């Protein structure tokens, strides 16, 4: 199920503005890769180019290659809709559909992918996904209540359940804990450890400790200078990145001596 990603020479533009330049990075299957770096350095932009969500913004485009198990996501015959069905995404702020119940939220992606489902089949998917997202015990008695009535941490786990309900190959998380309290954050970090068994996970985070705790590989992004495009400074095993990085800029950032 889980697939590897291979990015080579990716340039990401907003109109004429080059936002991220020349990123080349491999991501192993069934691993957690964390993107760290200062605000505005293009981590999130790069993450969004991995499931073609970047181009949703007017004028945004990409050149370069993103291979998922050898298949180029930006090939001419590739439909972005299919790419997004294959690659799940969790956003910075929890965004369950407010008009849908908890169960409907979990099934939202499923309903797009396959037209009809038996009731029992749907119930199984809801239970399985919510269990995987560690939310089942908290919501099993109110599956028909609106998802927006949950707490922030629960909503974010509901979004994770929604993303994995379709069993995607890859799960992208864009600062999934930045709007959550420390307890909900630790619940989600534990969850990431669990999910790693089945999914390739890429996570953007501003929290250095979080990157150290959850990831196998860390990639550091930085701006070359004001008005310059963001670029990938270095990437490597998390342990090495945090103890003995090659680039002095990485070391400065990790130790908080940045800027």
């Amino acid at each position, binding site marked *: 199920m889980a697939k590897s990603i291979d990015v080579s020479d990716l340039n990401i533009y907003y109109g004429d503005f080059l936002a991220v330049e020349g990123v080349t990075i491999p991501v192993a299957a069934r691993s957690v890769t964390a993107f760290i770096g200062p605000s505005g350095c293009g981590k999130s932009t790069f993450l969004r180019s991995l*499931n073609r*969500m970047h181009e*949703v913004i*007017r004028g945004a485009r990409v050149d370069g290659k993103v291979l998922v198990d050898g298949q180029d996501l930006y090939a001419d015959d590739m439909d972005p*809709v*299919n*790419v*997004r*069905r*294959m690659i*799940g*995404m969790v*956003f910075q*702020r929890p*965004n*369950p*559909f*407010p*008009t*849908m*119940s908890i169960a409907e939220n979990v099934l*939202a*992606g499923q309903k*797009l*992918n396959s037209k009809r489902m038996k009731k029992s089949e749907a119930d199984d998917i809801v239970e399985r996904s919510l269990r995987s997202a560690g939310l089942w015990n908290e919501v099993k008695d109110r599956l028909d*209540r*609106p998802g*927006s*009535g949950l707490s922030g941490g629960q909503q974010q786990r509901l*979004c994770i359940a*929604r*993303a994995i309900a*379709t069993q995607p190959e890859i799960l992208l998380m864009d600062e999934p804990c930045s709007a959550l309290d420390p307890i909900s954050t630790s619940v989600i970090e534990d969850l990431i450890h669990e999910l790693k068994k089945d999914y390739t996970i890429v996570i953007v985070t501003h929290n250095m400790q979080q990157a150290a705790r959850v990831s196998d590989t860390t990639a550091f992004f930085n701006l070359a200078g004001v008005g310059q495009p963001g670029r990938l400074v270095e990437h490597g095993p998390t342990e090495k990145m945090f103890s003995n990085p090659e680039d002095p800029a990485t070391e400065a950032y990790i130790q908080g001596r940045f800027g």
Partner: protein
Amino acid sequence: MTSIQSTARKRSTPTRPGDRIFRGTSIAAALTILATLAGVALFLTIEGIPGVLASPDEVKHGTTFIDYVVPLVFGTLLAAVLALALAIPVAIGVALYISHYAPRRLASTLGYIIDLLAAVPSVVYGVWGISFLATALVPVYSWLERTLGFIPLFAGPPSATGRTILTASIVLAVMVLPVITALCREIFLQTPRLHEEAALALGATRWEMARLAIFPYARSGIISASMLGLGRALGETMAVAMVLSASGVITFNLISSTNPSTIAANIALTFNEATGLTVNALIASGLVLFLITFLVNFAARAIVERRKDFSGAN
């Protein structure tokens, strides 16, 4: 009285003059609206009651008030509902195109044109309806009768002038279209980016995104917009009075030359020649229209309220 107020004021936090003035003016504005509404209702009731109670031989139309007003209510509702049924799908489609599909420049041009349509006086629509649309629809009506005549709606015989209730409804639909479209467009544009992206990231196509994120969010707004449109359709006078050739019957036959009239058009057409209790009967029919509009608004509120939990406002 004043002493109680002043002690209460001492205990509460001090208010600034600016706040007090603003509070005063907004309360005054709110009360003016209530007073106007109450005044209209009072006038209609007082002037209308003699018309309701008048015996058939005292009024020009020669029937009891109930017999007089029921066909008018029927015609009013039929024309308005038909107009909405025609206008709402088109309005939602156009609004969605402008807000989410059209390239930016085309979208703003289209937006201006829609707003312009809303500013056209209703008499112009009436002239258009009578001199162009009605004639143009005559062959359509005979075709409808030939092919769909088995449906009571199109039983015919088709009108030779085309001045039917269906023509009036189409004119009304064109008139309410810009109102509904403009409101829907604004509401669609306000759909949170977060929800749109949630749908897209799940692999929704643009249309599926509209169904998952935009329509549920805009639901109550669409209902409100439709109710505003319905209000206009119910009360529209000039265009209907000009287009419709009315004969005060109750029929679902949309294409024949005998059509029910509407309350507003009927008042406009008969008020000038009316005298005595007939005037009171007409005012009473106005009261009925007033009540219908009220009920429609309450119903709309109730619909919006019913699914409040899921509205996304919490």
